[in-house]
Structure formats: structure tokens, C-alpha cells
């Protein structure tokens, strides 16, 4: 089967649609500048902000009264464009995000109980911000999912969508991601000391960190035969893809780029392409000293001396985190359609170990593109986009065997410290240690050392650490914040910790979709098993009991619940 891309839509600091973005990319015009709408106290930090207020975005999105996170507004605008272009209806919507409605939570932190702010509480949840986009699109969606693996979220959305089409579970999928700027992650990245006060310079010898950006990017993907039958214009094809875990460190990438290497190799292998057949790599290229060196090492391992044209487009848009994979996949399709390679802006000098990117826009035909998106915890995803269709295998129905379910372990009987040593668990909360222990014990009892996939399902994510960081950020006016709670706050923290502690380079993901999170995780397992992509999987369903968030949830008669259930699947 061949999977065609028939629609693209995007919004970012360099344009509110594909045409505007194309014009800026070809003209070499960056969208990085002073923040206008975020309202952070760190006004010296440049950002790639979409140049419209929330009210203006609402108007563009056709949303009137109801509260909406900025993430959802950006998502609606980009998704509408992709759907319009494709001219078809989609039955599946998969949209990555991590920020979700964090912006609303920040705005109403001190006045939730007043006025209409209580309506916003549920929108904090990543899955709920996706539901809001889904609702506004008026499509016959039968499946909606929110992968939340930090900066690789949107590419993981593309992968799940492609797998669902290949396995016959979807006809046409709208896939990508959306993420607004938030004070939360601006401050979080600031505690990691990786935000450049100047426009970022990916792959440059003197690079000094990233600029955060915001936006959304979506693809409509469907079976080639459906696209041909409709007579629609095919923009390109999904050639191959892979997600792996670097399994090295929560925030640092390995020196040899092992995870990135495996992701790119996996994507090329699925596409049945040789490295020499790739003519453009849209790199993750955040411009942090660590990422660019590690990604260069991985690129050199794949391509050796025959390095194709490489550029990071983050000096145009900023790092749009969970949206980046979707946004950059759209940029890749534009590059292919208009036969140009976007410049890696601001690059001047190379130094040892770094690849040399394309400094000026190149005009030449492109046949095959590799697009990278890497996230916290070493969550590495690569996507190959091709001008000509690549044959992808279809489903072979295989039964799914749930081997075991393990529930929350009591901390007191020593079972937690048996699976997580004091040194390993030093930065973890007791809840986190319990979750990792539950997962490790389930694997232990099934005699599976390294499952092919580790997938988490959670409604609220790692809420304890999120609330710690948020509370400090609000109370200390964005000053003197500790990095550890931020590092542990992403939804995918637990899945990546399990991978790091067990040295597992396999598929790694987290879904946040309210009470349906676990269904999304199981759908992913079933689909990948039916395609023969994996043969074993650990699924961990979790949520945390968080007093601070319960104070807020009480306003809508709800509360958080501690959940820790591990399932091991084999076929």
C-alpha cells in the first residue's frame, strides 16, 4: 500500500498558512523576535511567536465565546487549511501536544474560583485541548488521540496515523501537532540554561542554545488509491518512519547519537531507501550545544562522507516543541513541491564533529526527505517523505495476548526499592518510583527483559512535578526555579525513565486522552503488532494523586486518582 499526503496546513511565527510560510522560507525571513503576547517577565528571551493575540486567533479559527487554549486555536487554524487542501473528510485525528491548556492554567492560577475560569480547568489536559480542535473541525472522527512525547509528539502522531491506515483502521487521517508558547516551558527551558538570548544558530560553532517558538502543522494522509479515485493532487508520500529511545539521559543526548541513528536507520529501512537516495534532511537542529553535536554524530554515522543537504528550520520558526515534527513535515512537503532547500539561517562557522548545513537557500528538485524530531528523555523520531510512492506492508491479523497485569505496589514492603535503587530514584517522587517499579516487576514476572515498545497512558501526566514547578513559577515570579521538577513534568517522563533504566532503545510513547488514554495505547500496540512492527509491549496506565490540583478540581466536583497498572502484551 502507498500512503499519499493530500493536504498540508501550518501556522507559525513566519506565517499563518502554507503560502505565507513558503514566502518567508524562500526569502530567508526569520520570525524570531521580542515576545508580544506571552507576558513572561523574561522579556530578554527572544521567541518565535505567532504574531496574533488570542482574540485574533479565535477570530481566524472561527471560535467565538468559549474558552480555548492557544494551542487549540493554532491547531484549528492549521488543521482547517490541511482539510481544505485535501478536500476529503478524515475519520482519524491524531495531534501531539504537551503544553495543552497550560496557558489558561497560568492565567487563572490565582482566580480559578472566580467568574468563568472554572470552565478552563479541564482544558489543562493535553487530550482535552485536542478534543477542542476535533470539535471545531466538524469531521466524522471515530478515533482521536494525543501523543505526548515532548518535542517528538507530532512525528509520533504521523506514525500512528500511517499505521492505522496501513492496518485498515483508518481511511484518511489528519496528523501532526500543535503547541503554544507557555510561561511554564519557557521558564523550564530557562532553568536548563539552553535558551539563547540571541537568534539561534543551529549547527554553528558558536551556537548557544535554542529559541522557543509556537505553531501547528498537520498532514492529511490517505491510501493512494483513494486520493487517485478522488482526482486530488498528491503532494508527496509517507515513505517510512521510526521512533526509538536514546535510553541515555533525561535531558542530554548520547555522544554517538545512538537513538537518533536508530530512528533514521529505521525510517530509511522501512522506506527501502539507501542513504544516498536522500536529498534533504530537515534536522531537529535545536542549536543547543548538545543536540547539534549528537545529531551530527548520528547523521555522520548514517551518511558518512556523502552528506545530503541538511538544514534546521528552527532559526525561522523557533523550536515549536510538540508541534515541531508536524510543522517541519509541512515545510518538507513545501520544499519538495517548490524544489528548494530552506536555508539554515544564522550559520557561520563549523567546528569538529558538526555537520555543515546549507547556509543559503538552494533551488533544486528533491525526491526524498528525512525529517527529524527528538524529544526529552531521548524520544527520537524520523520520517521519510518521498515524491514517489513507497510500498508499505499491510496488516497481517495477529491475536494480541495480554500476559499480565500488575497493580500499584506497596512502597512499604521493599518491592519498590527492589526495582528502583536509591541512586536511580534520587530525582523521582515516590509516585514515580512506584510506577517504574510496577513496570519493571511486570516485565520481570513475564520474563521479558526488553519489550519492543514501552507505552504509557495518562490523563493528567506527571502532575505532581508539573504543579511543583508551576506553583514555584507563580509564587517566585518566574525567578530562581529548580530544573528538576520541570524535567520530570513531561507526560513521557515515566516511559522514558523505564527505557533509560532498562537500556531499551525500542518504541517509546505516551498518550494523554482523558479516560480513553489507555484505549489509545492499546490501539497503538494492536496496530503495530498487526503490522509486524513490534512483537511485545509494556503498557503502563498511570495518574497521580495531587493535592494542589485537587483544590482546583474540587471546583468542578472532581479529583485526581492514583493509578498504576502495567500490562505486558505479546503476540
Amino acid at each position, binding site marked *: 500500500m502507498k500512503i499519499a499526503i493530500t493536504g498540508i496546513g501550518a501556522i507559525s511565527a513566519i506565517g499563518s498558512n502554507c503560502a505565507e510560510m513558503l514566502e518567508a522560507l524562500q526569502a530567508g525571513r526569520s520570525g524570531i523576535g521580542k515576545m508580544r503576547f506571552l507576558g513572561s517577565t523574561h522579556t530578554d528571551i527572544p521567541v518565535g511567536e505567532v504574531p496574533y493575540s488570542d482574540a485574533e486567533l479565535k477570530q481566524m479559527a472561527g471560535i467565538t465565546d468559549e474558552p480555548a487554549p492557544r494551542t487549540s486555536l493554532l491547531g484549528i487554524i492549521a488543521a482547517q487549511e490541511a482539510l481544505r487542501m485535501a478536500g476529503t473528510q478524515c475519520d482519524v485525528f491524531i495531534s501531539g501536544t504537551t503544553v495543552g491548556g497550560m496557558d489558561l492554567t497560568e492565567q487563572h492560577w490565582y482566580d480559578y474560583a472566580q467568574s468563568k475560569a472554572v470552565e478552563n480547568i479541564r482544558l489543562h489536559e493535553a487530550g482535552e485541548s485536542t478534543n477542542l480542535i476535533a470539535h471545531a473541525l466538524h469531521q466524522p472522527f471515530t478515533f482521536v488521540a494525543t501523543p505526548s512525547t515532548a518535542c517528538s509528539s507530532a512525528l509520533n502522531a504521523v506514525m500512528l496515523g500511517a499505521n492505522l491506515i496501513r492496518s485498515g483502521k483508518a481511511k484518511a487521517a489528519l496528523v501532526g501537532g500543535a503547541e503554544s508558547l507557555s510561561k511554564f516551558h519557557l521558564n523550564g527551558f530557562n*532553568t*536548563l*540554561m539552553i535558551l539563547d538570548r540571541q537568534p539561534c544558530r543551529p549547527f554553528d560553532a558558536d551556537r548557544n542554545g535554542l529559541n522557543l517558538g509556537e505553531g501547528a502543522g498537520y498532514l492529511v494522509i490517505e491510501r493512494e488509491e483513494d486520493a487517485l479515485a478522488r482526482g486530488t493532487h498528491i503532494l508527496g508520500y509517507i515513505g517510512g518512519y521510526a521512533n526509538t529511545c536514546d535510553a541515555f539521559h533525561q535531558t542530554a543526548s548520547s555522544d554517538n547519537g545512538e537513538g537518533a541513528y536508530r530512528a533514521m536507520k529505521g525510517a530509511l529501512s522501512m522506506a527501502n531507501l539507501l542513504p544516498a537516495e536522500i536529498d534533504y534532511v530537515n534536522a531537529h537542529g535545536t542549536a543547543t550545544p548538545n543536540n547539534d553535536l549528537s545529531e551530527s554524530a548520528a547523521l555522520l554515522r548514517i551518511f558518512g562522507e556523502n552528506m545530503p543537504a541538511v538544514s534546521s528550520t528552527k532559526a525561522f520558526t523557533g523550536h515549536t516543541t510538540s508541534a515541531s515534527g508536524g510543522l517541519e513535515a509541512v515545510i518538507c512537503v513545501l520544499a519538495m513541491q517548490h524544489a528548494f532547500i530552506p536555508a539554515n539561517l544564522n550559520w557561520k562557522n563549523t567546528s569538529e564533529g558538526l555537520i555543515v548545513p546549507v547556509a543559503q537557500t538552494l533551488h533544486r528538485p528533491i525526491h526524498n526527505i528525512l525529517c527529524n524530531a527528538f524529544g526529552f528523555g531521548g524520544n527520537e523520531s524520523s520520517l521519510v517523505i518521498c515524491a514517489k510512492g513507497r510500498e508499505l506492508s499491510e496488516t497481517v491479523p495477529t491475536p494480541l495476548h495480554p500476559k499480565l497485569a500488575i497493580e500499584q505496589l506497596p512502597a512499604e514492603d521493599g518491592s519498590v526499592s527492589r526495582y528502583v535503587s*536509591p*541512586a536511580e530514584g534520587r530525582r523521582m517522587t515516590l509516585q514515580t518510583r512506584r510506577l517504574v517499579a510496577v513496570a519493571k516487576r511486570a516485565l520481570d514476572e513475564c520474563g521479558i527483559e526488553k519489550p519492543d515498545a514501552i507505552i504509557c497512558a495518562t490523563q493528567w501526566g506527571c502532575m505532581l512535578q508539573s504543579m511543583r514547578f508551576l506553583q514555584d513559577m507563580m509564587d517566585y515570579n518566574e525567578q*530562581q526555579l529548580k530544573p528538576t521538577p520541570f*524535567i520530570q513534568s513531561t507526560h513521557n517522563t515515566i516511559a522514558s525513565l523505564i527505557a533509560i533504566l532498562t537500556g531499551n532503545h525500542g518504541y517509546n510513547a505516551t498518550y494523554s486522552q482523558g479516560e480513553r488514554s489507555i484505549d489509545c495505547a492499546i490501539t497503538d500496540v494492536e496496530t503495530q503488532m498487526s503490522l509486524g512492527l513490534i512483537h511485545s509491549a509494556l503498557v503502563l496506565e498511570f495518574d497521580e494523586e495531587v493535592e494542589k490540583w485537587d483544590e482546583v478540581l474540587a471546583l468542578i466536583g472532581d479529583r485526581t486518582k492514583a493509578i498504576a497498572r502495567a500490562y505486558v502484551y505479546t503476540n
Partner: protein
Amino acid sequence: MEQLIEQLKQQIIESLNFEDMTPADIDADAPLFGEGLGLDSIDALELIMLLDREYGIKLADPKAGKAIFKSVRIMAEYIQANRTK
């Protein structure tokens, strides 16, 4: 100086969550990174924040920490020379 070293050890234990350790377990002259306590890049960021919160010392460049965090004693000497509170 010795008093500052003891206080600093306690602060390191708390800020880096070494739950089961006491100040006596930390050798003031042992390296903090690599061997010794075996700290990593996240710990370095926590120590930079500790200098800021407790002693009013702001480091703008994370690489500057390398020279300062060689041992508890070297860190204490740096604090004594540069503290603003």
C-alpha cells in the same frame, strides 16, 4: 570556612535529594562529578540554582560551573569570595 563547608554539604544533600546521606558521608575534597558523588548535568544546574538562591551568586554560563563544582571545598571558597548574601 569549615562551617560554610558543613552548611554547603547539607544544602547539596537537600537540593540533590541524597536522602540517605549525611554531611559526614561527603569528602570535602573529593570530586563532585565523574567519581565521588557521580553528579551529572542536571545536578550541575541544581547547584547553579543553589548558588543563586542561597548565596546570591548568578552564573550566566552553565560551563562556568565546571571550575567551581570541582569539590565542596572549592565551591565553598568560590562562595566566600563571591557571595552577595
